[in-house]
């Protein structure tokens, strides 16, 4: 399933990129360049030949680990992507950690204390978080924490605390989703018969919530976190722009503007591959959390 999806992704993006007007060789040499030198550069960049021919040539390169050469910097695409990649991963991981940890915590809290003041505050906060545009939240945090209180630096990527504000901004929407999902799922489970049984046999409230209810309630949340993780890798583009983080997002926007097709393609296939792998990992993790699924696989053998 992984391979056809990736092939499809690359075909779609390749078509979009090549259907658009504007020729990379002309763009690089300027309008004044002679037709001859343009043709020469085109051959050099592998731009000659029909659409299918070019695509197949690119694909065979990718299969041997060669993502092509950036039109702009003439560096291998793989290197370009890899230079920017760590920043995006750091940001995405910070955001995922924030949204998962606080999402599950607040979700449980709000479900256990349903209809109390705490629950209402959490629900209202969730609504606010899901309606706030992440880039605006970023700007407001810059104003408050970087400009006014001077607690955190405006931008930069050298220290872990550089990623606090971008992480919160990128997490905001996912955090709201995780809280909602955990709360709903917990509320469903808390009313289940086996939770009543656990209470009836005299389990401590803490054991009931964490041992009996939470393990069952977490299943849909794990899926959500897995999906979020894949999306976060590509979803940090706007946050990267707010905090001037040199990551994949800024690389892509820049490359698209310069019609640097190999870099755009390389970055997109890279992100798509990663998010598919994360989804796969989520499925495996699922089996560990839910013994019912594990037993299915054992039987199938």
């Amino acid at each position, binding site marked *: 399933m992984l391979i056809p999806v990736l092939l499809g992704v690359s075909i779609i993006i390749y078509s979009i990129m090549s259907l658009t007007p504007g020729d990379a060789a002309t763009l690089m040499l300027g309008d004044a360049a002679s037709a001859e030198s343009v043709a020469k550069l085109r051959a050099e960049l592998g731009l000659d030949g029909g659409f299918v021919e070019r695509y197949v040539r690119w694909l065979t390169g990718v299969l041997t680990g060669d993502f092509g050469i950036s039109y702009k910097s003439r560096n291998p695409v793989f290197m370009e992507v890899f230079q920017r990649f760590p920043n995006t991963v750091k940001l995405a991981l910070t955001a995922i950690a924030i949204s998962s940890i606080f999402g599950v915590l607040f979700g449980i809290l709000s479900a256990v204390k349903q209809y109390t003041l705490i629950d209402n505050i959490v629900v209202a906060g969730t609504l606010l978080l899901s309606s706030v*545009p992440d880039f605006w939240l970023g700007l407001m945090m810059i104003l408050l924490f970087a400009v006014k209180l001077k607690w955190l630096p405006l931008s930069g990527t050298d220290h872990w605390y550089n990623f606090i504000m971008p992480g919160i901004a990128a997490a905001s929407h996912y955090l709201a989703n995780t809280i909602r999902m955990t709360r709903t799922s917990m509320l469903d489970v808390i009313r289940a018969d086996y939770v009543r049984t656990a209470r009836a046999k005299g389990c401590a409230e803490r054991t009931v919530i964490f041992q009996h209810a939470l393990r069952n309630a977490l299943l849909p949340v794990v899926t959500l976190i897995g999906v979020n993780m894949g999306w976060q890798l590509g979803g940090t583009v*706007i946050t990267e722009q707010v905090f001037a983080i040199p990551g994949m997002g800024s690389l892509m926007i820049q490359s698209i503007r310069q019609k640097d097709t190999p870099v755009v393609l390389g970055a997109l296939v890279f992100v798509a591959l990663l998010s598919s792998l994360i989804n796969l990992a989520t499925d495996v993790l699922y089996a560990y959390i839910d013994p019912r699924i594990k037993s299915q696989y054992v039987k199938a053998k």
Partner: protein
Amino acid sequence: MSETTNKTISDAERAARRAKYKKKSELKIVWRQFKKNKLALFGLILIAIMVVAAFAAPLFIDFETDVIEQHVLDRLQGPSSEHLLGTDAYGRDILSRLLWAARVSMFTGFTVIAIGIVGGMILGATAGYLGGVVDNLIMRFIDIFLAIPFTLMAISIVATLGNSIPNLILALSLALIPKFTRIIRSSVIGLKGQEFIEAAKLCGASGPVIVLKHIIPNALGPIIVEATLAVARTIIDIAGLSFIGLGIQPPNPEWGAMLSEARKYMIQYPYLIMSPGIAIILTAGSLTLIGDGLRDALDPKMRN
């Protein structure tokens, strides 16, 4: 005995009874349920006010002189009685620009959702109703689209096709179609086996008629809920894309584009970035409240 009592009921009484039953039509029940939810009602009123204000904007705001034209002498003035929300770096009245931006955002948002729903209905209903190879093909195609993170997809489309409202609509609706396809497909599959569909088939109704007249109306609930929430999300996304310079272009007013322009001055003049952000939050927030309210109102489990 019941027969005799039945006969004694006058026509007037019967009419009254009929009216009583009519009152219980699905829509009325949903509305009554929805009204109980004070927050959702609040969201609805808020959105109604904003829609009216956006529609009426041309009556008291002139696009050329109020929204676009620059008044250098009035630049960067804080809120006053003349300019309720102040003026921006080009001396333009922020309130007028916000209102005009609401028109742009709402128009784009609702168009995107409309295209997303229609596209999702065509693909989802075809996949769900026909099943088999067609279902497999369509759903694999959808999987491919879902493997590309949405923002990257939208950015590549807008950036390569050029910055314009139609391209923005195309990019955002392409991202929504997979979502609606999945929702509609699963409701179609759920409804397909039911007796009233069998009955329609036996009456000789063709596939498209069954889907359009019998299946879609019964699957509308979750679609409407998702659509309301998706409008909220789309309005945020439009602002986000415009913020990084890929959506609606200045000097045209748009909340995200306004924030992007105001960013340079935000440290000295924080009020510049306040109002567009709050406008987005109010719009998206009230749409979310309505969506949640509708979800509860449509859920039979919540009705007692």
